[in-house]
């Protein structure tokens, strides 16, 4: 089964979850032998920026460790042969510097989205 998970909402409770829940879920699907791919769009394309450094989170004496590392999570997913697509127009709209993006991402134009969808049995927009 080929599934495309579209991630659009970015940084949704990632400090509490320590990851993006849909990226996590996608890896879980992958372990269940689903042929999963990711399409980042909207603000979620910021996950591609290298060197994201969450601040040190603390409440009283509670020191939170293990912050989310979304760029590295995506790199780990690609190392497992999970394809990661991103909409180039959304990167250009936000003027994200191309030399700071992680490598291995497959960029498509908005005009190519429908063609991409045709490659999958299911397309789930989270």
């Amino acid at each position, binding site marked *: 089964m080929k599934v495309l998970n579209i991630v659009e909402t970015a*940084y*949704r*409770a*990632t*400090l*509490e*979850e*320590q*990851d993006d*829940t849909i990226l*996590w879920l996608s*890896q*879980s699907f992958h*372990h269940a032998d689903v042929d999963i791919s990711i399409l980042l769009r909207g603000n979620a394309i910021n996950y591609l920026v290298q060197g994201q450094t969450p601040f040190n*989170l*603390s*409440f*009283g*004496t*509670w020191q*939170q*460790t*293990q912050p989310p590392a979304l760029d590295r999570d995506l790199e780990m997913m690609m190392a497992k042969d999970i394809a990661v697509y991103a909409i180039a127009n959304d990167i250009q709209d936000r003027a994200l510097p191309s030399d700071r993006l992680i490598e291995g991402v497959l960029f498509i134009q908005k005009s190519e989205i429908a063609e991409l969808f045709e490659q999958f049995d299911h397309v789930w927009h989270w």
Partner: protein
Amino acid sequence: MSPQTLSIAIMDAPYESANSTTALRIIHSALNQGHHVHVFAYEGAVNLTMKAQAPHANAIKGTTVEEENHPTTKDWITALFQLAKAKGVTLKWVNCGLCVDERGAGDWIDGVHRGGPQDFIQSVQASDGVLVIPTR
């Protein structure tokens, strides 16, 4: 600066939004600077203080419970109550009773009280500042 009182209304459930973490950071900052804080937790925010919350391992990353140090909002809020005590200020936390009932969410950490909108209004009237953090 003499101690001021801040009232905060929050709505977001744990693990759903950055709003809850932001609200707790504001509360931490206010308490840490010696101010009193009154919290009115409305709708899904009543789940922030559930006693039964438990950290978990992360099978995807291959980390144990200890390695992951997965946060729970009830632990964060417990730390805020401890901070208030250490600073000699008040953290008053009221969970909306009707919101609790409809969610079956009544088993909380120590220091949390049941209340209603009237408690929020009374807190507002007694406060120097009010912050409402709605859900979206």
